[in-house]
């Protein structure tokens, strides 16, 4: 089977990107942490994680 890091990377990058954009463009905040843009930071984390997975995957292939 293909390198699992690639599909995993795509999944997390996609979920992260959606969440990041939602964090930027929506005003959704959590009840107990109204000052933190949880969506933005968590989206960024997911995106970075997905990016690392993709980078690892493409690095070994080439």
């Amino acid at each position, binding site marked *: 089977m293909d390198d699992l890091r690639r*599909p*995993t990377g795509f999944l*997390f990058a996609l*979920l992260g990107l959606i969440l990041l954009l939602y964090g930027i463009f929506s005003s959704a*905040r959590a009840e*107990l942490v109204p000052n933190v843009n*949880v969506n933005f930071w968590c*989206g960024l984390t997911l995106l970075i994680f997905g990016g690392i997975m993709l980078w690892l995957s493409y690095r070994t292939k080439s």
Partner: protein
Amino acid sequence: MTLAPIDYVSLIIYFAFVLGIGWMAKRKIATSEDFLTSGRSVPVWITSLAFIAANLGAQEMIGMCASGAKYGIMTAQFYWLGAVPAMIFVGLFMMPFYYGSRARSVPEYLKLRFDEKTRGLNAITFAIMTIFSSGISMYALGLLFELVLGWNFTNSVLLSAVIVLVYTLLGGLTSAIYNEVVQFFLIVLGFAPLSILAVEKAGGWSGISARLQPVMTHTWEYTTHASQNPMGVEVFGLVAGLGFVLSFGYWCTNFLVIQRAMAAETIHGARQTPLFAAFPKIFMPFVVILPGVAAVALMSMSSGYSIPLKPTGGFNYDLVLTTLMAKFYPAGMLGIGLTALMASFMSGMAGNVTAFNTVFTYDLYQSYIKRDAADNHYLWVGRITTVAGVALSIGTAFLATHFNNIMDFLQLVFAFVNAPLFATFLLGMFWKRTTGHGAFWGMVTGLVAGGLTLGLTVAEGKGGWIAPVHQFPSSMAQNFWIAIISWSACFLVTVAVTLFTKPKPVAELHNLVYGVTDLPHEEGVRWYKRPGPLAIIVIIVLIIMNIIYW
């Protein structure tokens, strides 16, 4: 708690993804072994993460967070004492026999080492247990979704079960294992922010320590007497019951986890699997238990958070995880959190289903129903069994309604099935003389002894059906002691019967028993990939954690 459209987007992307993995894995399947055992071809980093993910079911996530709120950080004993030492042991000492024997399952190892009846007994009890666990997990999730999201119990259970069914049916064990890795990442990335936010809000670890009773922020300090800690256990029951019998019984003999290690490409990979897995395992309490501890601190500081009450009074600890999510996650991240919960449910259920279909196909069907069919036939049986396993799980989901704490109930089940088994394996792998009759009667006695202990003791209103002879301070203590008694009974009877029966000739024990097995050569393996050095590093990290949270 209500979900926004964005939350459903994450959930749907994730569902599409798991089915896609199943579709990708499908191309590799030609034989029954490809389907049921992955054809021993999975890279070690994947087997390692799958090794712990298969155990991180939804009831584990909910139960650990609940126990964190109920018992405090002492709950981490389930990881540091109740998992890691056993994971080291199975990697160092037992994997050479499991992997080296070429057995396809744990019951098959028993058949090779002992005899047919030992395999049969283990296969049947294991099959029942996996279905049971899977059913409880499904029940827990369905109930939670009904309570928290207002989803229909039957529909949400059926939907999640059908998705697991489709991807395990398509890609077999490979699909399940690959998905477990993704599920592991999703669980960590979906729950870790909750832990960080909740702990931060409660004033950090020092703020939590200041607000809670000291017993909630220590693991060992208050275990001299059972009355000192809310778990109601003292150090002997804790170490012997949880740390030795239950832990080793689960991590060293439960085919559900062993199967992941046995799917590795080489014997080195199989031995590394539990050892690599031990590192994330040590740190999981910070993701799954800490939010529960923080929840109690948040309650005491009028932060706007409180643990929901049961209709009958008392806290409903099983709701701690989801209520925290509702308070700390906005629409968007809430979807990721729920997807993570769904992922944990699926990894737990797929683990049970893939272990069940292998044991049924090879150890029950091929052994007792149809012995010499073409491999294609067994592949077909494996697929049918996958469907049957899911259907049976759905059926048993409704049996799980009588027990209030899911974790306690699971312990109860494991106490019966796995506790005596570890005595059988310990003797079987390290004492050449151990006979099949000894092993079989030891296992039977262990199970009966466990059942009798439960029938004769009471804790929190449970047990004592025969006669309430003894009262335990908590269900936890009761479970630990059932395990200790069950294990001891199995050990003693196995030794006693062995001494009066004829052992197998040593020539037949090659690759099955210590002393007549060629241990794997490690010349070509780098030092940090060798089991010995790896185990030492794990132990050092473990000791440090225990000191910090003593």
